[in-house]
């Protein structure tokens, strides 16, 4: 719904607003009777049509774990309601996910070089030379302005660039991939950005879980694969951390000495201070330093238990607040207990975080900080979206009063 305001040069101050569906344009003429001649003139009034209420909210997610099918995406789209599914009737190898409110596009689709091309040039997919940032910027901008685009498809199975698919502007667009914040123009289009930072030990443990059962893989091959990609990763992907509004850092636990299975995790949610419309989650009191072990008399936890901490900090020169969780949830009441003590989590009702976590109890990370913080970020994004929509709806009212 777009609200158009007509400003007339005369002091009539008539405000004509009308609701307009996306992409319909109305030409508006008024008859202005001149005293001297009765010639019909188009009123030289300025029609400023701000289709702001139609503008898509764009979220960026930097992750090294494949595209659009990751757990984070599924949790995020679930917070908004509905399951995200690949577009029906299109390319079965499409990386796009569409639900009622959100569309998730994979930035791998903007590869300028396909697998053979990259082999020839000797660049990995992590290298910016393998990606077309101009096209990425153009298309994300177009979608943000409410124009549908034909986005290319990168087929991960064949390694080729397939014919494009049509992407219609959704209410919320999520761009997920390796380089959402690499290009400064694309970065400026993002309303909120998240970086998923997995530490090397945890990455190794997860890749072992993922690949060990596959024929062809061995411990050495998995290790070699991670190490070979590391230089490019550190050079091109890692620096994007500093631009993110929220970083989810996943580290090995400190509760179990010498644990290298990666089952129990220590997860830190690093939230930038001063981001418009985003209020960091906190424990007990904002800006204070707290260390909290919820297990005790009211709550019995099994080994290794749960430990929380919250503190202000600096991260790449920015003021941040860091909420950290080490350990895992074993029971429902632990989750509810923890939720009741967190503040600024933007839930609409008591127990919403728990409910969301239970809804996806089979997803990986549902019993530790990864699932918890991903869910909370999902709720914060919903809150951000609603605030943006509310502020846009309020703008024309201000103009009317003027």
């Amino acid at each position, binding site marked *: 719904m777009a609200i158009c305001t007509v400003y007339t040069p005369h002091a009539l101050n008539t405000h004509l607003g009308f609701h307009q569906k996306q992409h319909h344009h109305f030409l508006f003429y008024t008859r202005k009777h001149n005293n001297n001649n009765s010639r019909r003139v188009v009123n030289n009034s300025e029609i400023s049509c701000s289709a702001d209420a139609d503008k898509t909210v764009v979220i960026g997610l930097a992750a090294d774990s*494949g595209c659009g099918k990751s757990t984070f995406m599924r949790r995020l789209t679930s917070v908004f309601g509905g399951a995200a599914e690949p577009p029906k009737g299109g390319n079965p190898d499409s990386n796009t996910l569409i639900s009622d409110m959100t569309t998730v596009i994979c930035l791998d689709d903007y590869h300028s070089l396909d697998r053979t091309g990259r082999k020839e040039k*000797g660049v990995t997919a992590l290298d910016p030379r393998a990606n077309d940032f101009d096209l990425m910027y153009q298309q994300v901008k177009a979608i943000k302005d409410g124009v549908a685009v034909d986005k290319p498809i990168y087929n991960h199975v064949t390694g080729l660039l397939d014919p494009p698919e049509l992407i219609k502007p959704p209410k919320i667009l999520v761009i997920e991939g390796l380089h959402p914040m690499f290009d400064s123009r694309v970065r400026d289009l993002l309303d909120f950005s998240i970086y998923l930072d997995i530490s090397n030990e945890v990455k190794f443990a997860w890749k072992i879980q993922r690949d060990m059962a596959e*024929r*062809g893989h061995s411990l050495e*091959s998995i290790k070699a*694969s991670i190490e070979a990609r590391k230089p490019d990763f550190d050079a091109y992907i890692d620096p994007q951390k500093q631009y993110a509004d929220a970083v989810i850092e996943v580290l090995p636990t400190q509760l179990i000495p010498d644990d290298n299975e990666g089952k129990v995790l220590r997860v830190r949610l690093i939230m930038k201070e001063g981001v418009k419309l985003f209020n960091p989650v906190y424990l007990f009191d904002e800006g204070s330093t707290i260390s909290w072990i919820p297990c005790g008399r009211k709550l019995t936890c099994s080994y290794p238990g749960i430990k929380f901490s919250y503190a202000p900090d600096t991260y790449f020169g920015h003021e941040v607040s860091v909420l950290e969780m080490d350990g895992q949830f074993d029971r429902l009441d632990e989750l509810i207990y923890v939720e009741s003590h967190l503040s600024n989590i933007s839930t609409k009702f008591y127990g919403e975080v728990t409910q969301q976590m239970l809804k996806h109890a089979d997803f990986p990370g549902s019993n530790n900080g990864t699932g918890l913080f991903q869910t909370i970020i999902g709720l914060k994004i919903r809150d951000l979206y609603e605030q943006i929509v509310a502020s846009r709806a309020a703008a024309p009212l201000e103009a009317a009063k003027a």
Partner: protein
Amino acid sequence: MASFAISNLPFSTTRRHPKTLTPSPSRSIQLRISRPCVAAKAMAMRGGGGVAKFKGTQRRERLLTEMIEKKVLEATEVCEGNKDSDECKVAWDEVEEVSQAMADLRRRMENQDPLESFCSENPETDECRIYED
């Protein structure tokens, strides 16, 4: 609309398990009649937790497995010479890409009844009618 006797169908006619017509705990007896062309595509193979897989999915699985093996061998060869060369990095990057594709396929196949997504959109078609007695 073609009509055909159930006895003529070469494949089992229940939606979930080849064991016919055992009442499942959640719903009463369900009978799904597959059209011959769809039935021909879905081989009732017990893979991935007893879920029937389309030939296309099996083919894809096989293709990806072969690709992983091939690419790992390639990468080990290429990197034997020089571990820091570009070719080495690109080779392992390809291994990673294909491994990820395989992991995605496995995740998608986990609890997927191939008919499920089709039927959620078109419950009135022959394949998707549910009869409850």
